[in-house]
């Protein structure tokens, strides 16, 4: 059997042996409606399964979600005399025969697919059951017809969204253990996994790297809740190359989805970062620390090789000399890849009086692993919009994981919304990094600044985040801007 073509009509035709549809009615939605009408006439022993991939919250569904789900459903279609309809909104619809009791040992039942799919998408949606509908056609043929009509109407609408096309995937004939040779990728013809971008040397020779730098200010909230927050205190300023900015810089020519290459680029830029910071650190510019309160730390994100190198020793000496409290962030993935080097780097930072921060920790990572065992001073947990809606078992497991780390060792990053702040406070977290707390800091500055009559809150927030002088040239109170927040009033 040849590989299935990506188009829905080809898949349906090859599964049923029927004639290809006419081009005018060849859309997958038309095909589904025709099939639903036929199935409604002889519904006995058949079922419909809809995988609502469009109900997954971004960044899902990703290509691998579609690829794997399609492979599973295609296999069920082959085994149970079925058809698969990949619709243009990303949904997948399977029509097939039911396996009627008594089930023979080892026989699989397509009615069990929802449970499999729910397990599969368990990490990507708080309610995995909601992404699957199963309709036995004897009783619920109308459900399928209604769904098919809705989909056809939706795709007939202007600006209807189209799902990305599927790549062909190999199949095997039902019952066979080995595919025919024609289904295999022959030696030497594997497609490349993505075009490699230009060498990073080109990047480091760009006239201005400052556009790749982000300047963020983290804050600590004193008080039991957001409503009762007594004080917002800037605790560290983070200067880092933005992976997103790097990705955007190479979007036209590179493989933007390859995080390995982006990390390679970021590490190649470590030297540039140290050079820039050495020059800027003693001054009053956007990357300088001269105007900052002594309690405001500087956080940089560096690779282990850089931290253990000679250049960083010079930088560390400079920070000690001008009394800048320094914290170095190492991504969790790099620490785990080289635990020995991470331990040496952490020991060096500790001897130098600096802090070690583990970054890039998703809530999944906190559920799966115990990053606190690596011994960093602070851990940066990434906010996800899924966090407030986690199912109870995950919610409890995460609460236990946070308690094991100690909420006072956590910084909630990407805290760009009030929901993030409230969730973090609910977990006992007091340190935040993100646009929401930056806005709160900005509001404090606006209230205290005598020159703020011509400034808006968003202008003040943007200027505070600017990593270049032009980005803040209209600010008339740079001292307050760099301090992050006004000095607290004396009691």
């Amino acid at each position, binding site marked *: 059997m040849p590989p299935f073509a990506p188009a829905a009509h080809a898949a349906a035709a090859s599964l049923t042996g029927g004639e290809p549809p006419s081009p005018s009615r060849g859309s997958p939605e038309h095909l589904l409606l025709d099939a639903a009408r036929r199935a409604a006439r002889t519904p006995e022993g058949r079922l419909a399964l809809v995988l609502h991939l469009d109900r997954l919250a971004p960044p899902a569904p990703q290509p691998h979600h579609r690829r794997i789900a399609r492979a599973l459903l295609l296999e069920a279609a082959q085994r149970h005399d079925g058809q698969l309809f990949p619709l243009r909104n990303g949904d997948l619809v399977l029509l097939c025969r039911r396996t009627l009791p008594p089930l023979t040992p080892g026989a699989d039942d397509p009615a069990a697919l929802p449970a499999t799919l729910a397990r599969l998408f368990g990490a*990507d949606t708080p309610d995995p059951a909601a992404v699957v509908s199963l309709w036995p056609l004897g009783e619920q043929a109308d459900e399928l017809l209604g769904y098919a009509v809705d989909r056809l109407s939706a795709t007939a609408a202007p600006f209807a969204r189209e799902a990305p096309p599927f790549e*062909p995937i190999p199949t095997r004939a039902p019952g066979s253990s080995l595919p025919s040779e024609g289904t295999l990728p022959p*030696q030497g013809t594997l497609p490349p996994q993505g075009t490699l971008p230009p060498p990073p040397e080109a990047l480091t020779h760009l006239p201005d790297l400052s556009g790749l730098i982000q300047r963020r200010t983290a804050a600590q909230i004193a008080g039991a809740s957001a409503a009762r927050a007594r004080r917002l205190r800037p605790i560290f300023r983070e200067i880092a190359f933005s992976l997103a900015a790097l990705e955007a810089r190479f979007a036209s020519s590179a493989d933007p989805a390859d995080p*390995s290459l982006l990390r390679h680029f970021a*590490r190649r830029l470590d030297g540039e970062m140290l050079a820039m910071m050495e020059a800027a650190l003693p001054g009053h510019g956007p990357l300088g620390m001269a105007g900052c309160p002594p309690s405001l730390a500087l956080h940089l994100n560096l690779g282990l090789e850089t931290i253990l190198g000679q250049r960083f020793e010079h930088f560390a000496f400079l920070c000690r000399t001008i009394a800048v409290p320094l914290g170095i962030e190492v991504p969790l993935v790099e620490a785990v*890849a080289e635990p020995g080097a991470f331990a040496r780097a952490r020991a060096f930072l500790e001897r130098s009086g600096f802090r070690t921060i583990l970054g890039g920790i998703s809530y999944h990572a906190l*559920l799966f692993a115990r990053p606190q065992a690596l011994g960093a001073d602070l851990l940066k947990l990434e906010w996800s919009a899924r966090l407030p809606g986690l199912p109870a078992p995950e919610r409890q497991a995460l609460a236990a994981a946070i308690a094991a780390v100690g909420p006072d060792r956590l910084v909630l990053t990407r805290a760009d919304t009030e929901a993030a702040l409230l969730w973090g406070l609910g977990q006992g977290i007091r340190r935040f990094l993100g646009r929401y707390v930056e806005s709160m800091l900005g509001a404090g500055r606006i209230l205290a600044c005598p020159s703020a009559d011509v400034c808006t809150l968003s202008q003040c927030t943007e200027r505070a985040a600017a990593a270049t002088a032009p980005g803040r040239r209209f600010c008339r109170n740079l001292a307050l801007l760099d301090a992050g927040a006004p000095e607290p009033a004396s009691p």
Partner: protein
Amino acid sequence: MSGPPKVSAEELDAAALSTLARDCRLAGVERQVLLVRLSLVTADSYRPHHGRLAEGALEPLSRADRSRLYRLPGHDLALAWRGNAPGREQEALAALSVLFADAGPPLPRLADLVRRFILPRDAERLAACLSAPPAAPRAAPRRPPLDLALLSRIERALASADMSRFARRRPVCRRGASGRFRLAWEKRFLSVVEVGESLAPEHDITADPWLFRRLTRTLDRRMLALLSAPRELAGAAPFAINLNVESILSPAFLAFDSALPAALCGHVTLDLLPSDILSDAAAFAFARNFALSRGYRLSVRGVTAALLPTLPLGPLGLDLLLLRYEPALASLPPAALDAVSPERERIVLTRVDQPAILEWAEAQGLVLFQGRAALPHP
């Protein structure tokens, strides 16, 4: 808890060979020994593949009676055997004579490179040779890391390369009731070292961790294509392969899954790296759930003593943990293994190259091993 001696495997082999020389002298037992002194080769001329070629050259003699290979400090090798095996000896010497055909001068003479001892007559000479100050550690020439241009060339070359020449197998064994080791499953992998030496001999392909990560994804796809070839897995034993999370979700894996013989369903283990698991934990969870639903077993590999407390098996939802032996393990409290998994069947100790390591591991209740000291009985 008694830990294994904190000496290198090479030093232990050297001690064992010295003991053999002494025992032969005291008891008048006859043995033949061939010593290959790779430590005499300069750093500029030596490459890691010379060590493997030298082992290969000694392979004919390894079939002689009572033969044993000793890996000594400084990359030296010795092979001891009983009785006369002139044909095999000539075959080995012929292979050794061309060992450095690809290297430039200065090279030691063959007579210096290969020394021959007949025990018990030469026992003292051998002992003196072994007790001589160890060769100065060979400063491994630091090769430059990959760059993007070279990586691109390697990826293009791999697309059409015959990968079977890089394919290797390594047994994972458990000790049976008879005390002998029997095969639990095979590890199938592509030799990264040989890929590097073949396609980028002047570079260290592992030196840049992120470009190497990208390269491993290409190797995953080639490995999966290799295993998907018709009849490749017909009659195969249960096996494990290294994969990246992204590779499990790739079309190449779906092709492999389709080609997998029914007899192997449930008997294939996918070994993942901790850093790969944590780099995109959501993708990992999806891949894990998919692979488990298809009957694969999953493991986390390359776990060291430093990482052990970070990776408990239960929350990861994996079947196995591949724990790399290193002396630091011996200093961990016994509860450290319990924290990973109270079920010792779920921990595989790798790099079990010495009996002392095996002894320590069995004292910890471990039952699955990979390494030279735990090879299956033929």
